[in-house]
Structures are given as structure tokens and as C-alpha cells.
């Protein structure tokens, strides 16, 4: 992967300032767009690093085209991102983190604050992040909800603020409400509850994700739904609750309930498409990917609600001068519509629903956001058909889905204990 040179960017800045002097500085302040620097800006390369589901090369291509400087995508897995951010922070410019990952990154001091005044459409961004509410009601606080982690006191505070401030730890990125994926042609009955993940009906045909922080959530949802254990707070379980949950997982594994545990997105697609598994933890784009193969796969809404998650785009601490200006331009572009339209088609939502909706056709807008039946074929971001006219999106409208988020993905207080226990589950 290409590393861009922070030093050379700094030099360019200095030269730019010398050339133009105070007049440029004034112009910059007014437009927020350093137009005179545009010439130098094209030499900037921003590296956007994140997980495969959101770090998509099409986005980089479009950004490079629209912004005039180069954006590169660098894909890592969950542990890979945290490790890279901490050990090789300069290899990343924009970190596309999940909310719970910011809990590790922020105290480590690898990020700088995002100045909210420089994000032009901050006011339009979803209150899920900025206010902690959704559709006028307080959103679930079980787990790591975006609002609890988005603000910091100042640019270099490296800690989470309790209320709203002028500085953000990250600019809101994509988010979604997750549930179980099923093969309705093979389950043989209706699936209505998380409890079905552990149902003996699907012995040898179920799978769970092998990412401890996410997998445990699916397991807890299933256990609570089955009435096997009542959790005080699924967003922050106790050691005793974790021990019981893992014991149950081990029992299921020994009874050959799980066909596999999947680690990556493509594994979950293959398991489902090959018919190895009929019910499993799944991410929305994986469902889309199975459907593009002409196989019926449903992202089944369940009565206990969804497991929500969100991403945020953080500015790495080393960014300054011209490169930081470019980074702000990228953040503004990211929420200006194109990305929202693109990722809607893989089932995700943009933190700026207004501009995202504007970037979709009326048919797509109705299908993805408004819970209406499609009036024509719906396609994936890459153009393959996923749904036919007349079909309604699983789970209904944007509002309907997000008002049912029961718990957020999180890094619990007992995470270290969880990792040790999950290891036991892996080894059992």
C-alpha cells in the first residue's frame, strides 16, 4: 500500500501560504474551500482505511473524480483496523471505525477532533448520532450508541465528552440495523424470533459470526429470546452472564448445532448460497450478495428488535495543513449524497438521509427508505438485480427499522473476559 508523505504535504502548505499571504487565508475562511490551493490539492492522496463492507473502491473512485485529489481505499478486518491505528497511525488518514472501535482509538490519542463548524451539513445529519434520538424519541442506550461517543471537549482532548460540544471524535458514517439472515426456501417454517438461531430445528444448519464483540450479541439476543437467561443490560453484560452465554454456545457447538462460524463477509455469503446454512448472523450486503446470485435470502425482522451499529470517519492525528483541508472536503463530500445512494443499495443508511434520498430514483427511495413496494426491479450497487417489482424491503421503512433497535454493537467493560471466554468457545 502506498503511504503518502505527511512531510511533503506540510511543505506545500508553507509554500502556498508564502505565495498568497493573508488574502488567501481570508478567502479560505469564507468559502471553506481553499480555491487557490486547488492546484496543490490535486497532489494530495488520502488513505481511507476500514472494513470491507464500507471501504469500497467505487466510493474512492467517485471521490477522486468529484474532489480532484486522490482517495485510496485500504481494507482491513476488525482487529486489523485497531492494530493499524495504534501501531502504524501514519499509514491511515481517514479511519472508518465502528463506534466501539473508537473506544480504543480515542484514548490512545491517534485521532484528532473533527471541528463541527467545518462540516457544512452537520445539522442535516441523523439525530441518532448527533442527538441520541430517533424519530423524536430517545434511541436505545443499551450497548455503545453513537451519541455517547461522538463528542469530545476539544481538538486534542482524546476523551469522550458527556454532552454536545463543538468537536467530534468522528464524522457520522454508514450504519444499519442488523438481524438474522435466512433461506426461506430451506427453513421450512416462519422465523420470527432470535430464539430460532438456537432452535433444534436447525441443528447443523446454523452459523454465528466469529467476531467476539458481535457474535456474543447475537448469542445474547437468542438466549434472551428463548427465555434461557434474562440480561440486566445486553450492552454491558456481567462476567456471570458471559460465562453462562458462552457455556450455552459451547454446548451447542458440541451438539453440532453450528455448521460453521464465519469470520468474513464472503464466508457468510458462501455458507448461505451453498445451502450449508439456512439461518445465521448476517450483514445486510451479504444478503444482497446472495440475492444477486438468484438465491432467495431474507434479512428477517425479528420481534425482539435489531442489533444496531454505526461507523464514524475519524481524522488521524497526523493530518494537518493542506491534507487536513482535503480530509474535511472528503468528509463533506461523503455526506453529500453520492455515497448515501450507493450504500443504500447494499442495505445501509447514510447519516445524511436527505441527500441520500435525493441521490436515489423514486423507485429506489420508496423501496430502501420509505417501505414502499418496488415499482420496478431493484439492483445492487454493482447493477445486478436483487428484488423484483412489487416486493417490499424486509423490515419495512427506515423509520420502522431504526425505531426497533434493541441494542448497539459494543465493546463491553468485560471485553477482556469476553475474549478469553470466546477463545474457549473456539477451542472447544
Amino acid at each position, binding site marked *: 500500500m502506498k503511504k503518502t508523505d505527511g512531510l511533503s504535504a506540510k511543505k506545500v502548505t508553507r509554500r502556498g501560504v508564502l505565495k498568497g499571504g493573508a488574502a488567501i487565508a481570508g478567502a479560505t475562511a469564507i468559502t471553506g474551500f481553499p480555491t487557490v490551493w486547488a492546484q496543490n490539492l490535486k497532489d494530495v492522496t488520502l488513505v481511507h482505511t476500514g472494513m470491507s463492507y464500507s471501504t469500497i473502491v467505487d466510493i474512492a473512485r467517485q471521490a477522486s473524480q468529484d474532489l480532484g485529489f486522490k482517495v485510496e481505499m485500504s481494507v482491513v478486518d476488525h*482487529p486489523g483496523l*485497531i492494530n493499524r491505528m*495504534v501501531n502504524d497511525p501514519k499509514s491511515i488518514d481517514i479511519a472508518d471505525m465502528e463506534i466501539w472501535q473508537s473506544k480504543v482509538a480515542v484514548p*490512545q490519542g491517534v485521532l484528532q477532533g473533527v471541528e463541527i463548524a467545518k462540516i457544512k451539513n452537520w445539522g442535516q445529519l441523523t439525530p441518532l448520532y448527533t442527538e441520541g434520538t430517533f424519530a423524536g424519541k430517545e434511541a436505545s442506550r443499551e450497548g455503545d450508541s453513537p451519541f455517547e461517543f461522538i463528542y469530545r471537549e476539544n481538538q486534542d482532548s482524546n476523551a469522550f465528552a458527556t454532552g454536545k460540544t463543538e468537536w467530534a471524535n468522528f464524522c457520522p458514517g454508514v450504519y444499519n440495523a442488523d438481524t438474522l439472515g435466512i433461506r426461506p426456501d430451506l427453513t421450512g417454517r416462519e422465523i420470527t424470533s432470535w430464539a430460532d438461531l438456537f432452535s433444534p430445528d436447525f441443528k447443523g444448519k446454523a452459523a454465528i459470526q466469529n467476531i467476539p464483540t458481535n457474535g456474543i450479541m447475537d448469542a445474547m439476543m437468542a438466549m434472551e429470546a428463548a427465555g434461557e437467561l434474562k440480561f440486566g443490560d445486553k450492552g454491558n453484560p456481567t462476567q456471570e452472564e458471559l460465562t453462562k452465554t458462552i457455556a450455552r454456545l459451547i454446548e451447542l457447538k458440541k451438539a453440532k448445532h453450528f*455448521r460453521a*462460524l464465519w469470520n468474513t463477509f464472503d*464466508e457468510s455469503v458462501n455458507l448461505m448460497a451453498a445451502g450449508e446454512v439456512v439461518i445465521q448472523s448476517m450483514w445486510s450486503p451479504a444478503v444482497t450478495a446472495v440475492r444477486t446470485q438468484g438465491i432467495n435470502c431474507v434479512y428477517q425482522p425479528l420481534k425482539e428488535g435489531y442489533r444496531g451499529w454505526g461507523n464514524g470517519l475519524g481524522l488521524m492525528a497526523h493530518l494537518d495543513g493542506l491534507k487536513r483541508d482535503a480530509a474535511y472536503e472528503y468528509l463533506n463530500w461523503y455526506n453529500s449524497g453520492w455515497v448515501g445512494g450507493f450504500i443504500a443499495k447494499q442495505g445501509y443508511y447514510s447519516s445524511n438521509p436527505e441527500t441520500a434520498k435525493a441521490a436515489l430514483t423514486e423507485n429506489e427511495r420508496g423501496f430502501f427508505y420509505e417501505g414502499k413496494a418496488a415499482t420496478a426491479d431493484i439492483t445492487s450497487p454493482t447493477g445486478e438485480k436483487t428484488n423484483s417489482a412489487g416486493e417490499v424491503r424486509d423490515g419495512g421503512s427506515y423509520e420502522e427499522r431504526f425505531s426497533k433497535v434493541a441494542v448497539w454493537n459494543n465493546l463491553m467493560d468485560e471485553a*477482556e473476559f469476553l*475474549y*478469553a471466554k470466546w477463545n474457549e468457545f473456539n477451542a472447544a
Partner: protein
Amino acid sequence: MSPSNAASKSPLTTYLQVAPLMLVLLLFFAVPVALVVVVSFFRYQMLVGIVPDFTFRNYIDLFSNPTTWTLYLSTVKFTLITLAITFVLGFWIAYFLVFHVRSLLIAIGLFLVCTVPFWTSNIIRMISWRPVLGTEGLINSALIKAGVIDQPLQWLLYSDFSVVVAYVHLFTLFMIVPIFNSMARIDKSLLEAAVDAGATRWGVVWNVVLPLCKTGIALGALFVVTLVMGDFFVVTVMSGGLSGSATSGIFNDLQFLNYPRAAANAVILLIVVLLIAAAIFRLVDVRKELVR
């Protein structure tokens, strides 16, 4: 350079000659390993990372945790099974190439055929087993259509079986090459002499060929042992995450920036592999055999 020649030169020249390799080894091998050892005594603090310290806690954690033992046991199991199968396959393939194929050209040609799978990446060779072994895969559909079974065999994929299949597929060549190399150097008149002296065909293999291939077998075994013990990817992918290995324990610790415990685990694994290597070299003096 002959040994007598080297002795006549000043010791300084000799040191200078080994210096470049020495430097490379120091810089890229000794220093990193030393760092790993040092970090293995550091303390880990959640959300902070590593804190310099001198504690045995990581080692105590690992040794007192039954999971470590389960993982090592599973790794040793896979290593022994893979070793046995690759040895049998490797030995007989090499035997066939050396003693049964009369034309050297054909032997070399066939030997190259053995390397064909290596033209694609490890990952592709591994993943390509899935459509063969899967529930709706080649073997299951064939057996069902032939009426041999009526339910697909679930143990073919995402099981210990599929892990061993992948290991054997990936690593047999590492056994063939050194054994082929040792066998090719056996003087064929020795075999004739053995037959003349009344040895059976099997007796020749057992009393002549096998002892003379010891070096190749030892080297092949060393390759296979280190590859299997150090693997976590094949076992994770082929078992569908249902089996683990010693290395997957290290990987899990890294997920959460627990470098000290991962380092301690790496040190333990390194010691285990070194002990196995020492045992192999104890059985066969590879160095003596190689300069023979």
C-alpha cells in the same frame, strides 16, 4: 572452497565473509525475537495496551488456562496426522519417481507435475475444496445420485477431516522434495547388491532405501511440523472456525491488542517447535548427512 584452504586464511577474512549474513540474521531475526521475548513479560491493560513491566502473569495465565492446552493438543493432533499421511505419500511418490521411472527426463517431468498445484495461491487451493466437499458439493451429489447415501455427509466439510485434507494437499510436496533428493543420491548398485544377497523387495526398502533417506525424511518432517504448528488460517477456514490451533490463540489475543499475552504464547510455541526440531536432529545428523 575446501576446508584446508579456509584454515590457511586469517580468521578475520572468515569473519568478514560471514558478516553480511550474520547482520541480516541479527537484524531481522534475533532482534525481533528478542523483542517478542521482552514484550512477553510486559503487562497488559485494557484500552491502554502494553505497559512495560516484569511479570510472569502472561505465562501463568496461559499455563493455567485449559484453553491453551486444548489448542496445543488439537495442533499436535493435526501435526501428527498430517505428518503420517504426508510421509507415506511423499515416500512412495519419491520412490516411484526415483526407482520405477527409468527415464530421467520423464522422472523430472513427473516431479514438476507435483508442483503444479503451487502455481495457484494457497488460499485458492484451500477454498477449492469447498465445492468438492460441501453439502451440495461434488462428492455428496455423486454419492446421493449413485444411491449410496440419502443424506449428505456433513463431516466432509467444516470438520477435522477437511482440515487434514487441506494440510495434506498443501504440504505433501514439502515431504516429496527432500526425500526425492536423498533417494536420487542412492547408488542403485546397492539395491542390486541387496537383491543378490537375498533380500526381498520389501527388505530392500526397509533395510537399504529407508535408512539412506533418513535425512530427506527428517527435513521433510521438519517442514511439515513447522508449517502445521504455525498455521491458523487453514484450520480456521477448513474447519469453518470450529477448530482452533495454538496460533489462533495468538490471533485472538491480537484482536484486542493484548500483545504481552500473544508474545508469551508465541514464545511458548517457538520453544515447542524448537524442541521438536531438536528431537528430529537428534535422530538424524542432518549436517553430517548433507556433506556426505
